């Protein structure tokens, strides 16, 4: 089995602060982490390897600064890491990103055929959930999104059975390898790095692939140029004409604040008055 896990390095949203005046993100000092959803993808791949043997390659498209994320993945037990990095990739939207990753996976497949690709269900920064399906389509792999459990993989029969989260229930799906699986959060318990793997991660070579190494055939499909969507405007949300009407609060007498608010609601907001009317206990 050769399993490829696609991951992305993202800023840790828990540490993001918004500049109070400009409304923009203050990126300085924000630690970079592996996209949390991708950890479930890594774990799913490693569990299959534990069970069936094989080789797990972790791959990311990103700037050279993303290398630590790949090393971290090695420390968790991945065998091999490839950073697909080239200045021409900059500014890619999801379509262009899936083109680059699909090309790189295809190229990697010439070294060692790929049976399964795992990704997280989405990233916490782009939040689109579009790259996984994009890669699958481009590689003509079977697509299994929002997978909550890998039920069975049979390398001999080249088949996989998974549980997939759908609206109102879970689909049990069977398909053929090669397949691309996007993993749901909480689908497994992500392991800690073992000491030997941590040492291995420090020494391991993270291969850097530029557009040639990745086997990019059409340079017009990568980066900003290859992206059909552009951001045409970035703006703050429109403040309402008037700010919130303040109901004065005195810590010594919270009840009169509550009473005054209730009075205003009943007087000024008919919809709320109606809702409350319906909830009155008959007395």
């Amino acid at each position: 089995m050769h399993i490829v896990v696609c991951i992305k390095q993202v800023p840790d949203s828990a540490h993001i602060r918004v500049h109070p005046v400009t409304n923009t993100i203050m990126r300085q000092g924000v630690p970079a982490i592996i996209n949390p959803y991708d950890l479930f993808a890594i774990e799913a791949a490693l569990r299959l390897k534990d069970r069936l043997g094989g080789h797990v390659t972790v791959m990311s498209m990103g700037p050279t600064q993303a290398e630590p994320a790949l090393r971290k993945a090695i420390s968790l037990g991945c065998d091999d890491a490839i950073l697909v990095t080239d200045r021409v990739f900059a500014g890619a939207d999801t379509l262009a990103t899936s083109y680059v990753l699909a090309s790189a996976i295809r190229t990697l497949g010439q070294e060692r055929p790929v049976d399964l690709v795992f990704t997280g269900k989405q990233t916490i920064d782009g939040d689109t959930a579009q790259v996984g399906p994009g890669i699958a389509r481009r590689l003509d792999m079977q697509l299994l999104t929002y997978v909550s459990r890998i039920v069975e993989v049979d390398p001999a029969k080249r088949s996989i059975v998974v549980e997939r989260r759908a609206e109102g229930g879970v689909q049990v799906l069977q398909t053929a390898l090669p397949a691309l699986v996007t993993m749901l959060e909480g689908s497994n318990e992500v392991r800690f790095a073992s000491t030997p793997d941590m040492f291995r991660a420090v020494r391991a070579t993270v291969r850097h692939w530029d557009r040639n190494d990745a086997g990019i055939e059409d340079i017009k499909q990568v980066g900003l140029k290859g992206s059909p969507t552009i951001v045409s405007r970035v703006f703050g949300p429109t403040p309402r004409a008037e700010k919130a009407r303040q109901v004065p609060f005195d810590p010594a007498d919270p009840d009169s604040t509550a009473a005054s608010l209730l009075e205003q609601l009943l007087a000024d907001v008919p919809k709320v008055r109606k809702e409350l009317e319906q909830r009155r206990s008959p007395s």
Partner: protein
Amino acid sequence: MTATPPAKPIKKRKIKLDEHLLAYRGVWVFIENERGHVHPVSWELMGQGRQLAEQLQVELCAVVMGAPGAELDALCESAFHYGADRCYRVASPVLRLYRNEPFTQALTGLVNAHKPEILLLGATALGRDLAGSVATTLKTGLTADCTELAIDPEDRCLLSTRPTFGGSLLCTIVTLNYRPQMATVRHRVMPMPEPQPERRGLIVDFDPGLVEDNVVTRLLEFLPDSQDNTPHLPYAEIVVSGGKGLGKAENFRLVWALADVLGAEVGATRAAIHAGWISADRQVGQTGKTVRPALYIAAGISGAIQHRVGMEASDCIIAINSDPNAPIFDFAHYGIVGDCVQVLPALTRAFARHLGKPVKEIA
């Protein structure tokens, strides 16, 4: 090198469509239905699609896919009631239950045959799975989880607005030189239109040419959820939500107590959920549920854009926050600057008295 947009606006775009893309006309909505049940987001999208179609002076078309039969035909009728001028009926036994491969083939085939300029889908598990595959196959742009859709009258472009990462900003995304322009929208973000039972339209059949034996993926079983704990949250008329400002898990019971008296549903911010104070199915916001109640009470919530987009359609928002400069006061209707641990019980007492309910002693 990121899928997230750069922080600065980009210069005025120039649209130059290829010859063959000029023929793309009309607004389409994919009607998501499974096991005889239409996902309400599809009708919400029809309401929005109607407005876009009118601005563009084109037809609004519904795309209905499934196994042939009376159920599918009834769906077409419903689509007309919700505003469709035309309904593409894609009937095949292979499409009885959702699987990515045949649905992708059928929808891309239909797009290539009838060429819409806009294609909208619900941002559900199904919609996102399908939209991502279809957009890649068609090599066109797709914007996920839009909170606002509009048309630029100058160049007929679809302006898809969504929150940006982290910051309290929104960005508008356009698809330049590709058609159709695709977008997904989450449930409850757009209002539900009133159906008009007298409306009729034109049904156009499309044969997707699918053969079951060529479909690799098999659906072995469907395990329905035993219970969704929060099916009512998106439809609740009163919601009481708590955020990180509650300080600790125990204080969340103050939110429950107020909700109890009000007959309200309980919501939360992602920060409160990450803290482990409440279950994830109660998250309100961009990556949680969208609510549109008459009354939304936000306790200890800063008002980050990702939360805001999930609740700002509320008729009346009451914010309780100890920081007078918290962003939530910019869009709340009533504000109380104070400690929510003190304010919540006072509100519970006041509402209980008003509603004639017993006042349990809390906190």
